[in-house]
């Protein structure tokens, strides 16, 4: 079966991204297809490579990258939500005249069309959210 996950919550404010990570791993280990993980709203902060955790705590952006090394993953960060929150790739940094960029390797910025396409192609779309 084909799954798409949608992550709406910040990795430092909510447990939802951690649940999504565990669910993604369970999907892949069961032999299903994970078509895409789409990061929206504060979920775009999962793609911030500058997130730094104390040594004895997990680092969710790094955990996504580690999973993407084990399995081919399409980690898509909503571009409109990301630039507002200061998550930029090299292209957007140039476009907005910033001298730094911080989108983590393994993630890409793209539009909501990627969520629509994923919803059409997937058997299940599961949202992991948190408010505020």
């Amino acid at each position, binding site marked *: *079966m084909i*799954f798409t996950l949608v992550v*709406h*919550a910040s990795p430092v404010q909510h*447990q*939802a991204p951690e*649940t999504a990570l*565990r*669910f993604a*791993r*369970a*999907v892949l*280990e*069961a032999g*299903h297809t994970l078509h895409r993980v789409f990061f929206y709203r504060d979920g775009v902060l999962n793609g911030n490579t500058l997130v730094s955790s104390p040594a004895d705590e997990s680092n969710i952006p790094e955990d996504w990258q580690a999973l993407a090394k084990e399995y081919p993953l399409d980690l898509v960060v909503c571009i409109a939500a990301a630039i507002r929150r200061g998550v930029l790739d090299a292209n957007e940094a140039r476009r907005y005249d910033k001298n730094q960029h911080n989108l983590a390797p393994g993630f890409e910025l793209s539009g909501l069309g990627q969520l629509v396409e994923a919803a059409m192609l997937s*058997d*299940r*779309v*599961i*949202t*992991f*959210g*948190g*408010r505020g």
Partner: protein
Amino acid sequence: MSRSLHTLNTPPSDTDTLSHCLMALSEGDELLLIEDAVYFTLPAHRHKLPSGVPIHALAVDLQARGLTNATDISIISDPEFVNLTLHCNRVVSWF
């Protein structure tokens, strides 16, 4: 039959999210408690959940909160969570 799996991740103190979830629950649907919603398994809150629908709770979230006495609730693993989403026709997330 069209059957929805509802996931709820908010604690019992968030009465709004619970009431929206309960309004949407139909006969034949199933409810999965995740994250802070596993506190609904406590005796003080268990009666706030409907009796007519199957109720599940994620084992790791119960364990992380020291909740080991959940009765009449099916306790499921992450792989079983995946299977449950396939057993139902769609998933609705309440957060």
